[in-house]
Structure formats: structure tokens, C-alpha cells
């Protein structure tokens, strides 16, 4: 599924466009704990859905080869976070949906977990 399709499903607002709307998203990680993400994200090309809103999220995404981050509950990343994402080429989306609903919609649309299980 393309990143643009993901944004559409989540009724998301593109806060930072890293110029990769056609990037293929193959799986989803969702957590507010960065080490859990690093532990469970065994697949690159994942999307990260999180309620955490700081630069640590961008660093973690960069290290784990995550190309896009979705912030739930309308949490807007601050300027520092957006700036870092811009440098690292990571797209940022904000959705008003909760984490549960955002994950549910993407699961129903056919995306699986980045852990590779529950497909």
C-alpha cells in the first residue's frame, strides 16, 4: 500500500512531505516505547504509528529504516522534530484518530504487523 493511500485511510494531514508518497508501506509498528519498536520492528519499509511526539521518535525511525511516522490524536510535532524529519527524509502525518482506530483501519485494509506475525 502506498504512503498516500495510508494517509487517505487515516484522514491524515501531511505535516512534512519527504517527497515519497509512492513509497510502498508493507507493515505497521505502533508503540510509544522506542525500545519496543526497535525490538519488534523486524521489517524495514514499516510505518510507525505513535502518540509520542518528540525528536526521539525521528531518531528511532531513522535507525529502524522507518520511512513515515503517523502522530495520533492530533498531536502536532514541534519545529525541532519536523526539522529533524526533514533532514532524514521521513514523512510526517497527523491524524485526529486514536492509535487503536488508526491501527484498526490499516489492519482492515490489509496491512500487517511489523513483527511479521498476525498476518
Amino acid at each position, binding site marked *: 500500500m502506498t504512503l498516500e493511500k495510508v494517509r487517505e485511510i487515516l484522514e491524515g494531514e501531511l505535516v512534512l512531505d519527504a517527497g515519497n508518497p509512492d513509497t510502498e508501506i508493507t507493515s505497521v509498528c505502533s508503540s510509544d*516505547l*522506542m*525500545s519496543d519498536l526497535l525490538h519488534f520492528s523486524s521489517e524495514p519499509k514499516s510505518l510507525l504509528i505513535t502518540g509520542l511526539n518528540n525528536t526521539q521518535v525521528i*531518531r*528511532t525511525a531513522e535507525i529502524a529504516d522507518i520511512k513515515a511516522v503517523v502522530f495520533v490524536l492530533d498531536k502536532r510535532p514541534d519545529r525541532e522534530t519536523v526539522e529533524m524529519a526533514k533532514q*532524514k527524509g521521513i514523512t510526517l502525518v497527523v491524524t485526529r484518530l486514536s492509535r487503536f482506530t488508526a491501527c484498526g483501519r490499516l489492519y482492515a485494509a490489509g496491512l500487517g504487523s511489523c513483527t511479521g506475525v498476525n498476518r
Partner: protein
Amino acid sequence: MAQNRHIEGSFHLTGGDFTNAGAASSELKSIMSHLNISPDLVRRAAIATFEAEMNVIIHAVAGVMYYLITPDLIKVVLNDMGPGIPDIEQAMQEGFSTAPDWIREMGWGAGMGLPNMKKNSDEFRVDSVVGEGTTVEIIIKIKEGKTQ
């Protein structure tokens, strides 16, 4: 990478500096990405290194991260001036953390740091002296390492 070529360097880490937390691992990842090392190995090395770097930022006063990349392996050693780990076996358990609440609010302190380093390494060693500091050694073999 040219045969027998060794690339090495180091980064200084400052405890509590969350603004630059992860910058060393990010730069090391960038260096590795330009060296014709498979993306899977680069990713594993980056995750292990990042976790180790965050431990220094969270727990120690300061530290140094050394790296050595040869055609055969990626080796990263982190040496810190920190509180030390009284019980390494306990610290290696998934979910065990001594990080305070404000660290958790930043997204860290899940108790997965050391387990993640071990998971992503081919060889992993922790030496610690309480009151002095901790040394972590991460080795990822470029040839004949484990695959994920």
C-alpha cells in the same frame, strides 16, 4: 570496501544531552551505509549502537563510543562513566529497567535496551563496575553472521 581496509573512529557522548541523543549512532549508520555492507547488517548494527548510546545518555555522566569496521566485522565499544550495573543478569532480562518516570515519558526505559543490543549482535559483552562505569562491546560479523 577495499580489501583489508579498516575504518575507525570515535564519538564523545554527554549524559543527559537528549538534544543530540542518537546523533552518534545516526552518523555511524550513515558511514556504514556508504560501505557496501548489506542493509540488514547496517540496520542491526545501528539498532544495537543506538540502544547503547541511549543508555549512556540516560544513565551516565559521559561516555565514548569507538567503532571499527573491517571487511569481516563491525565492532562498537561504548565506555561510560556511569553508575555501573550491579546485576548484569537482571539487567539483561526483557522489561527490567531502572530508568526514572521522566525518561519513560520520553519513550525510553522499556527495559529492552540490553536485550535489543544482544539480539542484534553476533557477539555481545557487558562489563561493569558499580560506581565507576560500564563497557559494552557489540560485534556484528559481516561474513557468516546470524541472519534475521
